[in-house]
């Protein structure tokens, strides 16, 4: 398997870092080498936030080089342009529009629903490991709504 590069992008408060944490953990639980990069600091102030997840074998730099993203997961459509640098013609861009936000138990679950959508394309990670990673990243009271959001995302991806 070739190493996988995923860029998550959105705005402060949307759960970009949580989404990348869950993905990195799911890959870790599967037994891959994983690195995850992000920049904190100003993110709580509503600005652009992005995070890189790389997994596979022998990952070196934690940052995804320009033009090598396999997936760009957008939590806000406006962030496509600022992250175009990471994309090539073969990059799969997942737009937040693939999830019907009104179907989610809580609109804040968009990040997890997009992970559900993404998970269908990452067959090397089992659904069980995604579920474990979700459980480890949310307090118990939020688990049910996030599981629902994750499944809505999976169902939205029929490919």
């Amino acid at each position: 398997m070739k190493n996988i590069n995923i860029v998550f992008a959105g705005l402060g408060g949307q759960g970009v870092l949580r989404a990348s944490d869950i993905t990195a953990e799911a890959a870790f639980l599967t037994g891959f080498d994983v690195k995850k990069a992000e920049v904190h600091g100003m993110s709580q102030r509503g600005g652009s936030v992005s995070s890189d997840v790389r997994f596979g074998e022998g990952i070196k730099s934690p940052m995804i080089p320009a033009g090598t993203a396999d997936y760009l997961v957008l939590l806000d459509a406006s962030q496509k342009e600022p992250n175009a640098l990471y994309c090539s013609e073969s990059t799969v861009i997942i737009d937040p529009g693939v999830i019907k936000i009104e179907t989610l138990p809580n609109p804040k679950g968009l990040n997890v629903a997009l992970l559900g959508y993404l998970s269908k394309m990452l067959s090397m990670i089992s659904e069980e490991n995604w579920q474990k990673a979700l459980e480890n990243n949310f307090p118990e009271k939020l688990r049910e709504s996030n599981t629902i959001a994750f499944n809505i995302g999976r169902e939205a991806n029929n490919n």
Partner: protein
Amino acid sequence: MDCTRKLLNGDEAIAYAARNAGLNLGIGYPGTPSTEILETFSSLGGYAQWAPNEKVAAEVAIGAALAGGKAIVTMKHVGMNVAADPFFTAAYTGVKGSLVICAADDPGMASSQNEQDSRRYAVAAGLPMLEPADSQQCYDYLLLAVELSNKFGTPVILRLTTRVCHSKTIVKVGPFNEPKTPSYTKDAKSHVMVPAFARLAHVRLRKRLKDLEEWNCQNGPCTFLGPEGAKSGVIATGISAMHAAEALPEARIMQPGMTYPLPLAKIKEFVNAHEGNLVVEEGDPIVVETLLANGLKVRGKKEAFRFGELNVARVKKLAADDITPDPAPAPGKPPQLCPGCPHRLTFQALHDLGCTVCGDIGCYTLGVLPPYEAMDTCVCMGASISAALGMREVLPAEQAKRIVSVIGDSTFMHSGLTGLVDMVYNRPPHGHVVILLDNSTTAMTGLQEHPGTGRRLDHTETVRVDPAAVARAIGVRVEEVDPLAMKDTLKDFIQEQLDKEDVCMIIMKRSCLLALKHLKDREKAQAEEKKN
């Protein structure tokens, strides 16, 4: 040893290692990207404190280590400037226990006011320095630093960068060990730095650095990446080694873990066995200059690569001496003051008044951006007050009278108090007005406690240091208001204070909305815990 594999960022890895090393104390001042070290250490059961500023933190840690305890002190790079005074002399006194200084640089300035290279401090003060490249090395090097500190009797710098602190990689962590209580031994000749003793201490310091260099050549941590037997050689430090391994897969890469004092003999051996010998380091050309000065035939980077972070693409260009500009990403959405942030009201009033605003370090520095554009200067922690006094001293009266200082509550505790003393002592001809934006938290770095919140690092209650009481005791007239309740009259109110031409501090008291939410969540959790 019994090990567990975890996916941790560099800060967390250091905290886990600190628990394994059985540290007696972790202390620091919050600063991106170093903040999570102590927060994690505390959540893992370690004893951690926020100090009012980095100088105090360093001194407390030095005291703990002189007493025979093991301590870490954490800060961001600019905190090293604040703490430099005690470090330079602690290099002379040495330590009895262990002292590790975690200094987190921010190349590229993701969240900082400059991109200084703190490695210069190791050279200037004569303190050994370790530079990890990933979370596993953060873990291993913290343990090594604790050991070396004790073995050689010196504080040790663990130099981090934003990408190392905030990237998650896989770490093998060992079990936790509880701290041991040290016992005090008097050693005035080592610990009292009067000139007669200090002269001897300086000689000891230089000897110690020689010993450390030799140790580094023999036993120092050194990682090799890339194909064995490769012709072309690269010497890389910290995270740059990871970028280089990916950017230059044909090269053999040597990453010395201890970058001061450098293992010169060992590097010389590597250089002699390889060709090209490119030095890849972020920031200032420190390693390359040292190697060149010692007659090693190595090649450094062009000046263009002194700026910003390195990454895989930039290391490729660095190796090719390609200084064409990097492709600029389309601008993202800049950060801004949160909707409902109480600071907004003050900045609107200052904008409307046309004041000259000396600002400070925190969320509220965002007051410089549209729509408010209500900030004229921002230099370092506390300069809002002192720099404003300087401006008032030299400007003509009609301009001087428009000047105000704006400072946050945590920054005020950090470095505002001495400025306030100066305001009273060297009172400007037309007085001065300081606006304390008191949102009851250190918001910028992620809602940490400080002496003005009345809660310790782990959010347990302690005595609150009241800024109003302190200011009054210094001789400042204090006005405490809720900006939200004033709203439309805030502008006139500030003008009235300026017109009095005395020394005044207006405390704009209104909690950060994010901090309030966290506080309520904690109270709820505590109530539930009690029920069970």
